[in-house]
């Protein structure tokens, strides 16, 4: 038997443009203008899937975004997208759709056994069975339950489609293009304001698209025509406003799937817009509510408005007869339009009496009305066959479809994203916005203003107010079409008739929540709407309860004997509708996931065998192929190069800051714990900074270039922090100091020349300069011109060897680096990477990022003696607080491995020899390396009591690998304690 058929004429489909899609492996025909949903119905595909828990046969309920049942998997392979509402998918050539949650097919579903086991799936079933005392069983059952229940499956393949994003700005954003939205957008547009009109639908007009009144249609066409002619207005179809955020930020997502976009051409499937609007008019409309009765989920039972929409907009109607059940007058719009299309219509009206006007208009169309009646039961396993009425008229009617008209729920989501709770409006019998901030307005059905002329007037007013708020005063209002009579939208609030049969009566179709589940939740004390939601999963599906929330909380209110406003409502959060993750990620995927920072020497490293390692955002040369193929072998050779000959390392990632001004020396003297006021010109000094709390912030060196100019370096990791900190102190607190700071991190490249042959190497590179120990002693610096470029030479050492840093403007870094390697080739100079750099400093006992972890004091790091005694510096007062002075603090020690056959690991937990190996221990290893000088593993670590335990044997435990090793606590300065090499 046929239940639905395509009407021979009418609708907004283009019969001249046939479309062929694929559905469950078969051809699915339709026309341009169809949605996947309307095409399915036109092909009499009434049964379209199985329900979430019970695997009951299901059909379409709605024609719009609120559709709970009609979810399909689109695409194939890597482009697979599950859980897409068929009502929101344009039917286009090449579209591929599949049913989900049914195996092997929707018509014959083996999982329907769940329906027999249904007592298992009542509310709270999961909690009662798998949580609490029998918690462990969840682990066992979960995979089975997830397999049987649930929706479509995502693909594990990378998504080949492109997702784009943009920023936009406007004066007035209008959300929704129904009568109120069109009026608002046009009125605002006429003022000259920059207007954006967004609608989730493929066309503009909202409810007007589902009507069949020629006058209304002319009004719609005229409004859109004028709006599109305005240069200051932008109209966005298929664009859902997913959320509103602070500062009038609206997130819009446009779905461009229907264009079959080609990612290789840069075409995006989704475009996310972060729109900053000066004002926002919400004209988001209303969604019809179902009624709750026995077997109200039979395929063919739909919202009355959906029947009307399919009939008028898509020219798809029930084959012969439809029954409409209602508690209000709006159902008669659907009844009359269906009758006009040739469908025999019976209306069961919960209300005892129906107005004379309706009786006469319905009578003229041959519509039978049963007042005081509702639905007792629906029959037909895979599609409606018969309806039994209950109440005043207990008759049985053969039919193809059932329309439910339970009143309207204003779409208040966006109005509450900012935290304003909606309020219950008795007249509108639904929740309306609880208020608006100054720049927000509401109009039309979302305000509970359902009548056409009233909605248009309200929309026009809102558009004018929004434009005026945005600074555009002069406009002309938009008037409603002539001869519009707004009808009553009052409902008789019957949520679930008492005479219903014993079949399952669904409140939430998608989450398979029945009236009985709500009762159980009530009986078991889950009475708050938030508890009801979590206990029964009501409203937690992809539709977020757009059709079910009000019925559920009305029922709960009834059981509790309170009013609906007393029961309250759940919280609405973005996104308004399901959103592909790709749309949120946008272009920030793959190589664009985060910014990558490259040294000015990067290209040289790439060409010369460097392997890179990520250090924060930086790519750093880790080791070079000349030294070995793996870091374990290469870094040892690179260390030996520096200890015995000379090596060249890229240190351009260090933070570098220009500090100038008459008070520059005083400024540095305040931020560093040690003295800088008397640093002579041409000298460099190592310095440590504290935070206000007395904890070490960073270390580095600062050179005095002239009386009023200093050149500071910071650690790579803290460069940004230190720069902001200096700016903060100068701009917010020490405004009396005349100092200017500028970042030089990107301007200067740095290269370390280290090893006993460092001077020899540099003398070969810069033969004109006197680099003798007298001319440039340890911690000396000088600028000199070389080949037309200024070179800054700083004699300082991180490795403990005779060493220099050569700094030069970044554009010249590669040519200077290459020059040094070439000129100094007789010394055997080669590049060394980060691994060797970091290992050399461990041997020397220099602290670095792993030790400077924002938890340590100067004394913890053995640097307490550096601090000036006669001067104040940042962090001084709190450095001396009691806890920071405790001898029991974890402080810096050197560690030497006592068992030569073992290896040490960073992060190992340190225990005293007599301790039980358990818990957090007495400290941990911060840095570890093989020592080429000592021929053993050495480490730096933090240990309770620190060097007070020097010489003691302790234990390093690495529980993840079940390893333990004996260590000795030694001075952290493993080599050249006297510093003879530095001063050579």
């Amino acid at each position, binding site marked *: 038997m046929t239940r639905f058929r395509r009407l021979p004429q009418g609708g907004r489909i283009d019969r001249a443009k046939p479309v062929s899609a694929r559905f469950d492996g078969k051809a699915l025909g339709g026309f341009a203008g169809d949605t996947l949903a309307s095409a399915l119905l036109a092909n009499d595909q009434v049964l379209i899937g199985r329900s979430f828990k019970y695997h009951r046969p299901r059909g379409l309920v709605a024609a719009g975004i609120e559709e709970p049942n009609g979810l399909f998997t689109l695409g194939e392979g890597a482009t697979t997208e599950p859980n897409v509402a068929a009502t929101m998918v344009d039917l286009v050539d090449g579209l591929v759709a599949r049913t989900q949650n049914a195996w092997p097919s929707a018509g014959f579903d083996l999982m329907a056994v769940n329906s027999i086991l249904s007592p298992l799936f009542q509310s709270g079933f999961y909690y009662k069975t798998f949580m609490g005392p029998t918690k462990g069983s969840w682990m066992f059952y979960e995979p089975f339950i997830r397999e049987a229940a649930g929706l479509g499956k995502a693909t594990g393949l990378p998504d080949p489609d492109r997702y784009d994003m943009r920023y936009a700005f406007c004066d007035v954003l209008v959300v929704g293009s129904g009568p109120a939205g069109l009026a608002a957008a046009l009125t605002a547009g006429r003022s000259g304001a920059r207007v954006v009109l967004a609608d989730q639908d493929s066309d503009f007009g909202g409810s007007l698209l589902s009507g069949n009144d020629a006058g209304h249609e002319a009004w719609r066409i005229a409004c859109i025509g004028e709006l599109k002619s305005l240069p200051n207005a932008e109209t966005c179809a298929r664009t859902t406003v997913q959320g509103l955020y*602070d500062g*009038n*930020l609206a997130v819009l997502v446009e779905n461009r799937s229907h264009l079959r976009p080609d990612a290789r051409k840069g075409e995006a499937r989704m475009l996310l817009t972060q729109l900053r609007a000066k004002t926002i008019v919400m004209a988001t409309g209303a969604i019809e509510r179902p009624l709750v009765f026995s077997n109200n989920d039979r395929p063919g039972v739909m919202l009355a408005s959906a029947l009307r929409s399919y009939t008028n907009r898509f020219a798809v109607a029930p084959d012969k007869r439809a029954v409409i059940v209602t508690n209000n007058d709006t159902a008669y719009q659907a009844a009359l339009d269906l009758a006009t299309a040739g469908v025999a219509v019976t209306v069961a009206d919960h209300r005892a009496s129906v107005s004379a006007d309706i009786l006469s208009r319905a009578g003229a169309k041959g519509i039978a009305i049963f007042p005081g009646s509702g639905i007792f039961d629906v029959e037909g396993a895979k599609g409606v066959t018969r309806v039994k009425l209950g109440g005043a008229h207990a008759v049985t009617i053969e039919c193809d479809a059932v329309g439910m008209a339970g009143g309207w729920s204003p779409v208040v989501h966006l109005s509450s994203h900012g*935290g304003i709770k909606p309020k219950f409006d008795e007249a509108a019998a639904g929740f309306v916005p609880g208020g608006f901030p100054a720049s927000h307005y509401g109009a039309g059905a979302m305000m509970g203003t359902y009548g056409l002329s009233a909605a248009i007037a309200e929309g026009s007013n809102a558009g004018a107010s929004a434009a005026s708020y945005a600074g555009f005063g002069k406009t002309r209002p938009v008037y409603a079409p002539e001869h519009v009579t707004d009808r009553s939208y009052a409902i008789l609030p019957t949520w679930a008739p008492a005479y219903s049969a014993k079949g399952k009566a669904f409140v939430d179709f998608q989450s398979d929540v029945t009236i009985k589940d709500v009762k159980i939740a009530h009986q078991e004390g889950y009475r708050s709407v938030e508890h009801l939601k979590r206990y029964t999963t009501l409203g937690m599906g992809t539709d977020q309860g757009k059709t079910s929330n009000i019925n559920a909380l009305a029922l709960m209110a009834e059981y509790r004997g309170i009013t609906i406003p007393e029961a309250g409502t759940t919280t609405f959060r973005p996104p308004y509708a399901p959103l592909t993750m790709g749309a949120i990620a946008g272009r920030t995927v793959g190589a664009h996931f985060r910014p990558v920072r490259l040294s000015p020497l990067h290209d040289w490293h790439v060409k010369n065998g460097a392997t890179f390692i990520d250090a924060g955002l930086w790519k750093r040369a880790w080791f070079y192929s000349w030294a070995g193929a793996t870091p374990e072998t290469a870094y040892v050779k690179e260390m030996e190069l520096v200890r015995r000959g000379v090596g060249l390392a890229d240190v351009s990632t260090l933070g570098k800051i220009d500090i100038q001004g008459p008070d520059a020396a005083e400024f540095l003297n305040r931020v560093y714990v040690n003295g800088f006021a008397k640093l002579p010109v041409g000298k460099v000094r190592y310095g440590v900074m504290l935070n206000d709390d007395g904890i070490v912030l960073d270390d580095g060196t600062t050179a005095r270039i002239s009386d009023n100019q200093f050149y500071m370096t910071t650690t790579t990791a803290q460069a940004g922090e230190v720069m*902001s900190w200096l700016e903060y102190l100068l701009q917010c607190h020490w405004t009396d100091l005349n100092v200017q700071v500028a970042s030089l991190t990107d301007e200067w490249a740095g290269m370390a020349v280290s090893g006993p042959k460092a001077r020899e190497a540099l003398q070969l590179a810069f033969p004109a300069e006197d680099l003798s120990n007298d001319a440039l002693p340890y911690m000396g610096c000088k600028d000199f011109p070389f080949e037309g470029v200024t070179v800054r030479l700083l004699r300082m050492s991180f490795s403990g060897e005779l060493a220099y840093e050569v700094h030069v403007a970044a554009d010249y870094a590669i040519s200077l680096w290459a020059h040094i390697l070439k000129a100094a080739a007789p010394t055997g100079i080669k590049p060394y990477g980060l691994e060797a750099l970091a290992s050399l400093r461990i041997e020397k006992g220099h602290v670095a990022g792993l030790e400077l972890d924002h938890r340590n004091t100067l004394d913890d790091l053995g640097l307490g003696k550096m601090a000036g005694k006669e001067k104040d510096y940042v962090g001084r*007062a709190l450095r001396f607080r009691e806890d920071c002075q405790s001898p029991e603090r974890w402080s810096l020690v050197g560690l030497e491995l006592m068992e030569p056959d073992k290896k040490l690991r960073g992060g190992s937990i340190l225990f005293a020899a007599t301790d039980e190996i358990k818990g957090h221990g007495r400290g941990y290893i911060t840095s570890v390396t093989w020592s080429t000088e000592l021929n053993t593993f050495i480490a730096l670590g933090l240990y309770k009591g620190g060097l007070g335990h020097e010489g003691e044997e302790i234990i390093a435990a690495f529980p993840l690998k079940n390893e333990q090793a004996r260590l000795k606590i030694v001075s952290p300065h493993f080599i050249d304690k006297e510093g003879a090499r530095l001063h050579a």
Partner: protein
Amino acid sequence: MMIPCPHCGDRDVSEFRYGGDASKQRPAHGTGDLKAWHDYVFLFENPKGPHTEYWQHVLGCRRWFKLARNTATNEIGGVVS
């Protein structure tokens, strides 16, 4: 959230760095009073409602400024001198 940079105008919050409570006076340099520093560094009101705080326009002019913001509603009261 849009933040009114006193030099660059209204900009998205992603361009800024939050700098903490600006309602307290930092002890002057040279103050060795442990209690004054303790109270300044560790004790905060953490109000729900109007608040004055430091922000830096790090992706813009890099200027620090004091901003009045309602911590409950994110309503911006403007730059405080």
